[in-house]
């Protein structure tokens, strides 16, 4: 509807976004203001600094600066034996550490040519703990983002759900977050006796929590207004920027390593991979929500089919022998000694091994020089690529849109900065 332009000195009540922009450009002279967000900022979780140039509420340009959590993973890995690197991988994506453990173990096992000899039970256990980790990753992401948008209740529901899952992982590995549970050749210890019944009960409750969060947010006017149509990524952009995981899939890029290049025993499970269509913040939210449900499907199937058997490969050159043998036979003592002091001897070679991490394709590019330490152990961090696209997404958005956008990208500082 056409309206006469107002006289310069009068004031108007502003309704709707389009009118405000018109009003601002006509009436008020503005100039760009530099605004610094972070690295110490409640919404910049994972420590990220954004140097913004804002004009009013609109962002003119953004420079996302990462690296505040850089701890030298690669440098440390070059000075540690292959097994000593597992605690470092825990601290990469620290909300889904099992997935990082598994990704690294698979890479080294491929270099050792033992990836076909991992016991079946160990593979199932890796899938189970991996999917639990994936659920905790998405729970953390959605909880934190919901809280930042004002939905505190959702935060508590989802974090409580995360706690139930972490209790189980603590039973299995001894720690809530820094598991170091996976080993080259299998896993460090077997699941606890009543793990499966407990997990089924926990999943029932987690389903309830996710359902509650879904009901509270998905049809919520405020939530939808803040998420719909914001920070749209197209499928072509996802490919050009190397965006994988929920961010890429929400843009319509149907790529999931578990489906396209199955590893461990993922090809035996029946699950779907949710793919979005619009590539906006809400799609990223919805994809993660649905992925959690699909992960729970995988978990149920894995528990049903979990075979009995050993959990570590029986090769004294790769896996530590049982303690009883180490203390009583010289052969196992020597094997234990050499494995700890010199490390597993991985033949010289290079490999790029990739798995589906919480944020996308988690790759490990490992170069071995034939000794017990890697020559190079590179992590291809999925959220490094995902965060890079923010430099392109943010200009044109409002300052308030940064919060849901950054939250839905799910930058985990440990993985992005390593």
């Amino acid at each position, binding site marked *: 509807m056409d309206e006469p332009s107002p006289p310069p000195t009068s004031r108007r009540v502003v309704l709707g976004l389009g009118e405000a922009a018109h009003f601002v450009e006509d009436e008020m002279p503005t100039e760009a203001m530099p605004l610094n967000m972070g690295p110490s900022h409640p919404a910049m979780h994972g420590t990220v600094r954004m140097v913004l140039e804002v004009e009013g509420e609109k962002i003119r340009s953004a420079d996302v600066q990462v690296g505040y959590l850089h701890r030298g993973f690669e440098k440390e890995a070059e000075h540690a034996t292959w097994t000593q690197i597992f605690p470092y991988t825990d601290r990469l994506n620290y909300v889904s550490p099992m997935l990082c453990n598994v990704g690294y173990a698979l890479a080294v096992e491929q270099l050792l040519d033992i990836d076909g000899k991992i016991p079946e039970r160990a593979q199932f256990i890796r899938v189970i703990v991996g999917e639990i980790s994936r659920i905790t990753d998405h729970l953390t992401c959605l909880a934190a983002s919901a809280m930042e948008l004002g939905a505190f209740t959702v935060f508590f529901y989802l974090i409580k759900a995360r706690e139930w899952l972490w209790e189980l992982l603590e039973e299995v590995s001894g720690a809530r977050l820094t598991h170091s549970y996976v080993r080259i050749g299998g896993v460090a210890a077997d699941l606890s006796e009543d793990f499966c019944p407990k997990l089924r009960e926990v999943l029932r409750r987690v389903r309830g929590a996710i359902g509650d969060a879904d009901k509270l947010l998905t049809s919520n006017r405020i939530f939808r207004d803040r998420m719909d149509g914001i920070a749209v990524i197209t499928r072509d952009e996802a490919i050009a920027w190397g965006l994988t995981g929920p961010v890429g899939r929400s843009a319509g890029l149907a790529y999931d390593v578990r489906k396209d290049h199955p590893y461990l025993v993922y090809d035996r499970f029946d699950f779907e991979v949710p793919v979005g269509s619009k590539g906006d913040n809400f799609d990223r939210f919805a994809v993660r929500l649905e992925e959690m449900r699909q992960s729970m499907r995988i978990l149920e199937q894995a528990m049903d089919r979990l075979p009995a058997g050993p959990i570590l490969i029986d*090769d*004294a*050159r790769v896996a530590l*022998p049982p303690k009883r*043998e180490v*203390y*009583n*036979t*010289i*052969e*196992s*003592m*020597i*094997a234990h*000694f*050499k494995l700890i*002091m*010199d*490390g597993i*001897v991985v033949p010289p070679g290079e490999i790029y091994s990739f798995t589906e991490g919480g944020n996308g394709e988690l790759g490990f590019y490992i170069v071995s*020089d*034939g*000794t*017990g*330490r890697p020559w190079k152990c590179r992590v291809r961090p999925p959220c490094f690529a995902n965060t890079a696209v923010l430099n392109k997404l943010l200009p044109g958005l409002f300052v308030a849109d940064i919060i849901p956008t950054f939250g839905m990208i799910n930058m985990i500082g440990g993985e992005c900065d390593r």
Partner: protein
Amino acid sequence: MADERQAPFAPTRKVTVTIDGHTHEFSAGMTILEACQRVGVKVPFFCWHPGLSAPAVCRQCLVEVKGFPKPIPSCYTPVLDKMEVVTNSPKVLDVRRQMLEFTLLNHPIDCPICDKAGECELQKHYFEWDARSARNDGGKVRKAKVVDVGRHIVLDQERCILCSRCVRVCNEVARQPELTMAFRGDRQILTTAPGQRLDNPYSLNTVDVCPVGALTAKDFRFSMRAWELWATPSVCPGCATGCNIEIHAACNVIRRLVPRPNPVVNKHWMCDEGRFTYQRVHQDRLAAPRLAGATATWEAALAQAARVLGEARASSPSTLGVALSAQATNEDLFAFMRLVSEPLRADRLYLTGEAEGWCDDILVSADKNPNTTGAKLIGGPTLRTAAELKRDMEGGALTTLLVVGGAGVTGPFDKLSSLLVVTSHQGPLCAAAQVALPLAMWAEVDGTFFNRQGKLQRVRPAITPAGLSRPGWQIAVGLGRGLGATLAYADAKQVFAAACEKVTLMSGAEWGKPEMPVQLRFANSRG
């Protein structure tokens, strides 16, 4: 090594041998094991050693040869023409596992407390070739555990795998047959011959060659784990032989010296006395410059020394003496000679050093200084002896004396008006000096020595200089500055390059490539 066994200019017959499907040509007379090593085929062994005879007792090197009914020991069998050797068939690999199983059958589970852990050949071969679980249920034959067999060595009979390398070292290298095997079967032990102790001057070589922790050095036992050690190649300063060694240090302290193979100088061995020369590096060091008995800064001490030397040169140049040491590196000697010739223009030059000692025809020289040859070469024909120095000091012919090194200089100093000393240790010489400048030692500097054969050999730093001590050439540069001479040397390599130009016998010599200390761990463990 195999090369030594071939007469240098005798025509050698060539034989064609196939190893694992690849055909090669070798000189006749070589053993199959040596041939495999030549072409990079790995065959494990315990009892063979390149510097000793091959008894073929451990049976670890068994390989299959076409036409022979049983696997044969490759360390003992010479290559024959048209031989077909297989080292990696399932049968050979299985035989290796069996031999290792026998060797491990009664081996005590001592790895956590055994010195050799980390450089143990038994550990290495088990991990590479066996990696199977034990089949015996744990009952092992017990033998004596801590046997004091000699001045420097402790024997653990249970760990001994009866390879007899130590017996052969005593027989063939030291030529004193002090060790022997006794009893038979699984009761066989290593022991000393009746009435003998393991006391020959090369006894610690047995500790080097022992593949396991049966023979351990009393000096090194329990002091440091092998994988914490950083190895630096260097040369022993104990005598003029200049055996090539590796300095093993950790946390900036030298822990032991071991020999490095050099077919011309020391083959694979070194004497016990030489092994202990590292202890002096950490005892009673002069840590800071001293001026009239009190600690001073380098600037003050150098300035004072330069002043004294300058005055002596101006007023009474004929009573100014400089004593060089046969313990110093060529670089230190050359830098000080530059000072001596110009600006000091001193013509009272003395060569001092450690007194002569015992010698034998195996490795030990009577000359207990590593660089007499170098000192004489660089010092020139006007060098006077240590006896003349003593006479000149007693007679009052010297009033000002600059001592570099200080080995063998005992005085009397009372007739001297000024004694300037560049030395590494505290002691009577240092106490008598007006100015004492701390000198870095052979294990702390880059430098070269000439050994008794005239070979130029390189020493490398394994630890940082003690306290504030500096390399000799650097002290010479500092003194030169005070005397108005510019010795523009920034590192030892430059001094070496300058020396190579001036000293005829050094022309064409190479400094060698830079080598960082290597940690005895992962791919670099010795066992």
